[in-house]
């Protein structure tokens, strides 16, 4: 596996496709890693462009430092990865928290981001960190239920070894690092900031998603945003409509 040292942290990186890379995929928080993109959308996109996927610090097969989980540090980590991979300007593709990270990166380093593909992304609006801590700081049965829900439609459902390992890893991240306090203290932006984003954005949301409002806010912002709402889908739209999400994103990269 490729391990790339970024700002002193060893990150697990996967490189797909030929030619210079300009698409970087970011995954969701805690119960996620690069495999979500690896087995769904990344490879078809890699037929068109060079692609990079990485595990955020503390996730998948990347190192798990005890601190540095605030949004600014994670954005710097993403930009450090772009530097390390020689990518001057990237299309960022993010699911859930990965989308929030991509948006924050575009706000802080507009010159490094060419476009955004957001799948049920939260926006870094005022209070987002506190809200996210509320859903992450669960324990025992509640956490097991979250794992069950998030991974219901992925490899190894009903697998005790996997559930235990996921719970262990999630526990180590939530309890063994500064993740929760870092999220609480993270940067946020006023709603007007998102309207000022002028780069091309494909925003895919589930019609039943609890963060649909964030997508709507982006959609209202300008003609640079293509807003696709998938009927009957929730926040887990990437799993509920994998083929459609894949086809939509591949079409986007074919046209852009």
């Amino acid at each position, binding site marked *: 596996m490729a391990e790339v040292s970024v700002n002193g942290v060893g990150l697990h990186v996967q490189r797909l496709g030929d030619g210079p890379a300009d698409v970087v995929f970011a995954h969701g928080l805690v119960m996620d890693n690069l495999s979500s993109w690896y087995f769904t959308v990344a490879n078809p996109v890699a037929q068109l462009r060079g692609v990079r996927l990485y595990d955020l610090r503390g996730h998948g097969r990347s190192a798990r430092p005890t601190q540095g989980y605030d949004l600014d540090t994670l954005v710097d980590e993403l930009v450090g990865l772009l530097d390390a991979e020689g990518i001057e300007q990237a299309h960022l593709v993010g699911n859930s928290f990965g989308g929030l990270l991509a948006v924050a990166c575009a706000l802080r380093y507009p010159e490094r981001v060419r476009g955004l593909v957001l799948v049920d992304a939260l926006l870094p609006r005022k209070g987002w960190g506190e809200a996210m801590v509320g859903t992450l700081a669960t324990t025992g049965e509640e956490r097991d239920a979250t794992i069950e829900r998030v991974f219901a439609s992925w490899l190894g459902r009903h*697998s*005790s*070894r996997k559930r235990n390992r996921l719970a262990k890893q999630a526990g180590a991240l939530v309890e063994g690092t500064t993740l929760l306090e870092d999220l609480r203290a993270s940067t946020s932006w006023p709603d007007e900031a998102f309207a000022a984003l002028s780069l091309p954005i494909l925003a895919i949301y589930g019609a039943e998603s609890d963060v649909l409002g964030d997508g709507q806010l982006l959609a209202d912002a300008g003609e640079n945003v293509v807003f696709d709402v998938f009927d009957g889908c929730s926040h887990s739209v990437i799993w509920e409509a994998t083929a459609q999400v894949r086809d939509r994103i591949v079409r986007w990269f074919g046209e852009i």
Partner: protein
Amino acid sequence: MSREDTLQILAGFIRDVIGDEWDDDMEVAFDTSFSDDLELESIEFVALAESVQAHFGDHVDFVGWISNLELDQIIALTVGEVVDFVESCR
């Protein structure tokens, strides 16, 4: 190389990927399921895909093959199906 040889190569990769948690009672046969029997995590599956690709070369486009499967098919994959895929690329 026979199907049995390919199976043994895959079994070696699977053991490496599972690492310390490998249980000597675990058996890898053609009908062994990645999910139900081996309980492979998706990130471990990435590592396996990497090993398969590196060993058999670019003409065995394992990741591309997986990407075209529906989720239910991936979940239900057996080691034998991966062996057959590798063999079909020869």
